[in-house]
């Protein structure tokens, strides 16, 4: 999980013997199912509480117990949160991968490992820190059955000692983790402290890495994107969630369930103002969402690749019958079942075109947990305004890892329920045709079932229809309706979140990225800058594309579209959409299941630039 040595990745510039502070990466190698996630997030949270910009990433296998798993914690005083290929500090807690893990350490790296393994110190360019795990745990008051579990606290304590992590912050993090229940906190802290002290007493520090408190994180929050998206949905007034479990989207629904229980029970009766339905599969899940959307509720589902494929037919129905729906696709690696626990941006083209025939969808592309929150509520406004399914394309990296963010901003506008006619409206208007373009924006008016008016009813259908929603095979009706849908899609261009542009005067090359690829881009641009190379940058936040993007492309000679898939899907989309500029679009696409890195981006970029 450390593809380090092979590339000349940036390492912090430092003089021999000088300490390296808040600018390195820790990797914890464990076996899954052993509870190391607690230890890792406690370490991460303690660092976060010390004000140090951090990002944690979990690389876990698609099984439940017994396979190798890695967790990286990047500390970056400069605030970079992208994955870094090299980790300087290894906590080797998995005997089956230990030699491989050690081999990936850079010179000067550090290896913590259980002393009882008695491994040979084959490398003389790294520091070895053996920890007497078994002894320390045995010596603690932990009951025998839980010893395996608290064993992880040994590395928490040892690492804290050697890197200078504040023990109080470790305790605070444990308190957070165990919701302030003192017994487990004490049990764990006992081991942390023992290991901490043992390390200070017994391990002479031979490495340069250490941490220092910073002020930069003041007021910030630490959360995963799935929780953020769920919270956004809750503040978007989500009313029905229908879903079918699938990694990595499941935790979005889990979080929604928790937040809803917390925030959306009726204060008087304690009853729910929302429904959550675990469907029998994804076809049913999206069907329920569409049924609820048709009936006037804000409804959503969350899924990943295989589920997205199963939603193809229903997505086309919702598009064509014009029913609002919100679909989160937390992307993992495909084709097919692929790598269920690895991240990708491989469904963009697929979601955009989901469904047979001439179907096209609005897609939102969050990069940060703040955008997960924002798009979480905004997706409903868009879906109801446009009367169409809206896809939110997150990914495993964003959804399941912990990210630092400014606190989320409360929605800056009231809920937009779109063009819904009430009985009073119908009285006033005296007529109603469900699919008529009254306003010229392609968006028709709808009525909800239950509207007490003789004019209210219409018959929703996936078959060809005229303005009155009556079945029609007339060529004119078909083309008129499709032309209106095209107008509506153009209206969507105006309504979706605009790209964010950071343009550099005189730069001839521009980067386009979206989603989590944003984070290594930020870092890559700085790296390029440090080499005197300036590139502009546009971050897409939604599909369909709109003029900002075209204009940005127009102003640059070469546009690099950076993305984490094999086929360069968004590069393809841009070429399709802007043929006049297609020849300046260069695809930098790479997918191996790990988030892209600044190193990969700069190398790929420079290679292409040099090859010109």
């Amino acid at each position: 999980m450390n593809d380090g040595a092979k590339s000349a990745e940036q390492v912090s510039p430092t003089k021999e013997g000088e300490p390296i502070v808040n600018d390195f990466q820790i990797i914890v190698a464990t076996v899954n199912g052993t509870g190391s996630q607690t230890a890792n997030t406690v370490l991460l949270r303690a660092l976060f509480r010390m004000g140090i910009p951090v990002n944690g990433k979990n690389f876990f296998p698609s099984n439940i117990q017994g396979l190798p798993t890695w967790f990286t914690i990047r500390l970056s005083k400069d605030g970079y949160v992208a994955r870094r290929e090299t980790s300087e500090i290894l906590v080797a807690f998995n005997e089956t991968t230990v030699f491989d893990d050690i081999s990936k350490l850079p010179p000067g790296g550090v290896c913590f490992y259980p002393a009882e393994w008695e491994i040979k110190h084959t490398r003389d360019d790294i520091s070895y820190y053996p920890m007497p795990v078994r002894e320390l745990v045995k010596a603690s008051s932990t009951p025998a059955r839980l010893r395996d579990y608290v064993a992880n606290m040994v590395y928490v304590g040892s690492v804290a000692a050697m890197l200078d992590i504040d023990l109080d912050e470790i305790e605070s993090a444990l308190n957070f983790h165990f919701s302030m229940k003192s017994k487990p906190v004490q049990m764990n802290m006992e081991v942390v402290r023992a290991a901490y002290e043992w390390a200070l007493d017994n391990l002479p520090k031979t490495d340069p890495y250490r941490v220092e408190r910073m002020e930069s994180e003041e007021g910030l929050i630490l959360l995963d994107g799935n929780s953020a998206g769920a919270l956004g949905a809750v503040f978007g007034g989500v009313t029905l969630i229908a879903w079918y479990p699938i990694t990595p989207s499941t935790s979005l629904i889990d979080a929604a369930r928790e937040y809803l229980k917390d925030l959306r029970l009726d204060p008087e009766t304690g009853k729910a103002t929302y429904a959550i339905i675990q469907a029998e599969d994804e076809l049913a899940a999206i069907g329920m969402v569409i049924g609820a959307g048709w009936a006037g509720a804000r409804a959503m589902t969350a899924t990943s690749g295989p589920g997205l494929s199963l939603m193809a037919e229903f997505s086309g129905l919702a598009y064509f019958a014009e029913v609002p729906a919100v679909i989160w696709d937390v992307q993992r690696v495909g084709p097919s079942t692929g790598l269920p626990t690895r991240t990708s941006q491989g469904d963009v083209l697929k979601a955009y075109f989901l469904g047979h025939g001439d179907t096209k969808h609005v897609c939102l592309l969050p990069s940060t947990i703040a955008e997960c929150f924002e798009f979480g509520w905004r997706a409903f406004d868009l879906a109801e305004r446009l009367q169409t399914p809206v896809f939110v394309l997150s990914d495993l990296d964003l959804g399941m890892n912990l990210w630092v963010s400014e606190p989320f901003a409360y929605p800056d506008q009231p809920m937009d329920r779109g063009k819904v006619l009430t009985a009073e409206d119908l009285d006033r208007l005296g007529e109603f045709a469900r699919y008529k373009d009254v306003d010229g924006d392609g968006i028709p008016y709808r009525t909800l079932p239950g509207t007490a008016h003789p004019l209210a009813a219409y018959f929703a259908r996936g078959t060809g229809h005229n303005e009155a929603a009556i079945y029609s095979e007339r060529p004119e009706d078909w083309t008129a309706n499709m032309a209106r849908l095209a107008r509506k899609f153009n209206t969507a261009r105006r309504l979706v979140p605009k790209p964010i542009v950071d343009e550099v005067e005189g730069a001839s090359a521009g980067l386009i990225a979206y989603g989590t690829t944003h984070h290594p881009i930020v870092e890559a641009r700085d790296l390029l800058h440090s080499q005197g190379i300036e590139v502009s940058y546009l971050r897409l936040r939604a599909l369909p594309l709109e003029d900002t993007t075209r204009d940005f492309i127009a102003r640059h000679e070469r546009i690099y579209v950076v993305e984490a898939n094999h086929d360069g899907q968004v590069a393809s989309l841009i070429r399709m959409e802007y043929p006049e500029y297609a020849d300046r679009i260069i695809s930098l696409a790479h997918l191996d299941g790990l988030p892209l890195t600044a190193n990969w981006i700069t190398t790929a970029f420079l290679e292409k630039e040099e090859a010109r």
Partner: protein
Amino acid sequence: MATVNVNLIGLSREDYKGRPSTLCRGCGHNSIANQIIAVAYEMALEPHRVIKVSGIGCSSKSPAYFLGRSHGFNSLHGRMPSIATGATTVNNTLIAIGVSGDGDTGSIGLGQFKHLVRRNIPLVYIVENNGVYGLTKGQFSATADQGQTLKYAGVNELPPIDICLEALAAEASFVARSFAGDPAQVRTLLKAALSHRGTAVLDIISPCVTFNNHETSTKSYPYGKAHEEPLQDIAYIPYAEPIMVDYEPGEVQLVEMFDGSHIQLKKLDPESHDPTDRMAAIQLLEEARANQEFITGLIYVDENRPTFREVSRLIDEPLVSLPEDVLRPSPEALEMVMNRMRCC
């Protein structure tokens, strides 16, 4: 000025009609649509409170032909149950009528059907069962009798799926069977179903006049066997009158279908069958199956089984009516959540 008969809420029968049917003349589905119109009129259902949902098929088209003042959703093949689940969960004031076919429910939609029943979604679930795929022109559906012969599809070698037994296995709270040609019984059962609290499964045998090309069907074409074959593959559909029966509880009735085959209907005698006894209901169906009989009437009912909405402990108000200040928590609530996630 002619007087128009109106019901309790002042609506005429006309107000419950839909668009003109585009189904074949004599199709059982038309007869069922007419009974729905009659029952809705008689029960004085408020049209705006009714939703009509369906899948795809001739049967699934028929919601367009009744209750034109009610919202309808002609969705996807086999997927009506999920649409109904979503809509009724968010609006419990709606009276939901679902119309499906035997292909729609028994083949592609079997999974959704069973899971809807299991959830006891409040819905009158009508299967217009003709043993064939009407709209795609005469293939066997999963409810076709074993050994039956159709010109198009040959001999059906597979055992039929029994919609009622399937519903019972999924713990349905209301299971009935009827015959489209017995309007009185259809109306009675429809009324019962509309008064039921959860899912009411109504399996209605509904003959298809068109795929009447039974090998042995010499009768409808007096011109004799020699002409029969060539006259069939030419999409010529002679107008047919619907099949009608009238018989008493307890009786067995042999009905000749358009294709010359026969089905045996047996009307349940309320005296001898206790519809609240699940095991008895299953036994009844099993025995009928063995005797190649179709039991009609109310087979099983359990008025106590809670609906999905009830077990989900939802607020009494329909979720779609909740105002923004209920749906969107306050800025303070967000601040509270943020505080929990804060660094320091």
